[in-house]
């Protein structure tokens, strides 16, 4: 589904990603772990096409299509979804309006007709239940005045509505209490599908108790330095990141 080869990326001329190779098959959940500043969030943003980063080498191929030259909205329409670490507030733009515009832009790209207001609401209500969101939320502005937990739930809710091929979750667990974490994890688990690849970027192992990954990769200084199964995450939790860093240095 997703094939990243020799990906190099810079911000303001400084190289952050120094040659990433990663293959995520449909149906799989991969966790990207690593210490602060290792390039985890950069990788998530580069996949989504953020303009502040420049790809200097390598390729990102999703379902046979090279994303690296595409505008962010085109990548989204191709099926890339990024659940943001810090979802931005958009005053004055209602959630329903925003989500309907997003869904219909993606549907259009897939050759589908726009959903009308009634079908859209029915579709959205069904997804809201899974992340236990109150309907009053639909009439509020996007993320405006949301608590940290509400913002993260909103990201997962949007992901469910937009039904991506590739879902990237950037530190979705940060700032969540245990109840909210469970709700978010339930949402992600409900999205596991043989037609979808999921990449979970996280600093802590905790989230992986609820979203159990098929593969775990450790990122350090812009490279994947170690890959393994879930036990790698548990080992990291016990030994800390310094263990890996020391091992690389050796």
């Amino acid at each position, binding site marked *: 589904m997703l094939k990243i080869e020799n990906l190099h990326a810079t911000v303001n001329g400084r190289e952050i990603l120094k040659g990433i190779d990663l293959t995520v098959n449909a149906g799989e959940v991969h966790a990207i772990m690593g210490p602060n500043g290792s390039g985890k969030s950069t990788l998530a943003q580069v996949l*989504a*096409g*953020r*303009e*502040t980063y420049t790809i200097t080498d390598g390729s990102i191929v999703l379902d046979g299509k090279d994303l690296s030259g595409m*505008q*962010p*909205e085109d990548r*989204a*329409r191709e099926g*890339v*979804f*990024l659940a*943001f670490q810090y*979802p*931005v507030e*958009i*005053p*004055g*733009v*209602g959630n329903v*309006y*925003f*989500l309907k*515009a*997003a*869904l219909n*832009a*993606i549907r259009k*790209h897939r050759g589908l007709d726009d959903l009308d207001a009634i079908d859209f609401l029915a579709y959205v209500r069904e997804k809201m239940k899974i992340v236990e969101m109150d309907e009053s939320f639909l009439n509020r*502005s*996007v993320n405006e005045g949301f608590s940290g937990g509400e913002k993260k739930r909103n990201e997962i809710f*949007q992901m469910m509505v*937009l039904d991506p091929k590739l879902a990237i979750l950037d530190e979705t667990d940060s700032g969540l209490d245990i109840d909210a974490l469970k709700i978010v994890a339930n949402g992600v688990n409900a999205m596991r599908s043989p037609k979808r690849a999921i990449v979970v970027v996280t600093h802590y192992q905790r989230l992986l108790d609820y979203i159990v990954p098929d593969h775990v990769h450790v990122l350090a200084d812009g490279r994947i330095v170690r890959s393994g199964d879930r036990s790698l995450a548990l080992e990291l939790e016990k030994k800390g990141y310094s263990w890996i860093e020391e091992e690389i240095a050796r």
Partner: protein
Amino acid sequence: MKTETHSVEDLANREYKYGFVSDIESESVPPGLDENVIRLISKKKNEPEFLLNWRLKAYRHWLTMKEPAWANVHYPPVDYQSIIYYSAPKTHAGPTSLADVDPELLKTYEKLGIPLSERAALAGIAVDAVFDSVSVATTFKDKLKSLGIIFGSFSEAVQEHPELVEKYLGSVVPTTDNFFAALNSAVFTDGSFCYVPKGVRCPMELSTYFRINAAKTGQFERTLIIADAGAHVSYLEGCTAPMRDENQLHAAVVELIAHDDATIKYSTVQNWYPGDKNGKGGIYNFVTKRGKCAGFRSKISWTQVETGSSITWKYPSCILQGDESVGEFYSVALTNNRQQADTGTKMIHIGKNTRSTIVSKGISAGHGQNTYRGAVKVLKGATGARNYSQCDSMLLGDTCGAHTFPYIDVANNTATVEHEASTSKIGEDQIFYFQQRGISKEDAVNMIVNGFCKEVFRELPMEFAVEAQKLLGVSLEGSVG
């Protein structure tokens, strides 16, 4: 409008001003202004003595006045002696079919969703009947007439209801009010007139059929709207479609009078030519708009969406004379490229328990400069007066500017005056958020800007609100890198 057939011809010929008849076709006046020109205008329009004298008085006062320089706008001096104040219709030199019209203009019509039938008229195509509005217009007119509502061109009102014109003309904006109002009073050629009699509620938005006609408003337009006791009227001015216009300077005057318990709602969506990217061309819109809430519990509400002038200088205001009268001002002003806007309102509280609301949304993009200038004045006798003002500015990019000059002057200590202001910027992170959800950059800006203007759009008549939203999008095109 003399006859309905004329109105269609008018549309086809931009320089043809309604109220004129064909026997003046060969006449023209050289550029420049003196008393003879004014006498000629008045004579051609067959005006009563009082109106000529009124014009002359205005002209003589105008000669003693200086063009105002206090507004936060910059433009080369206007040569008032090079303007043709009276022009007879010329042979039409415009396009003859849609194929000859600038494709950019057509694209804009398309984006705005202007009905096909109206596009040709707006583009100034000379055809006999480009749209079928004559019969519609007649039906509307009959209906209004049966209710006792007088609605038509200013020239027509001068002929048919001179007593109303004499009574109200200049009663809100005196000839001596300001430089542009004085000039307008001296030389105005036409405009609209509306009188709604006691207790009558006008059953339609005035302009539903007027929309196209509004496209050929003159350079010096004069509008007078009177709502008698208990009357109710909503008037719509302008058009979302860009209009071909040869006149650079527009100096209109609008006067509204609301008697006891009367309500006047005046909405404007103006999209004249804003000039090119470097600010060349474009309309100077120097307008005086003022309403008088003369009666007890009367109400005047201004809503404006200003996107299309090179320079906007206008302050639709309310004189709240009647006790418990209400004034409202809702405004969206957008400046892109080199556009400049200095706009706002004056709320003058005279009567007891008068209330006013001001909501102003300024959007600046490109090198646009947007100024809100507002005055809230509470006079001594205005016991219990209340005002609430909200001025929000939004910036797109870092080469534009937003300025706010609120003046508050309170002479009665029972008054309550509130002022809120904010400035925001569309962030790169916000746009990326939209894009990541599949929404293009332009649509993202559109959605954010429309969200920002929601409170004002809510005040517009439904159909207009939808067009106004699209208009903002079109006006902002190219403003995000």
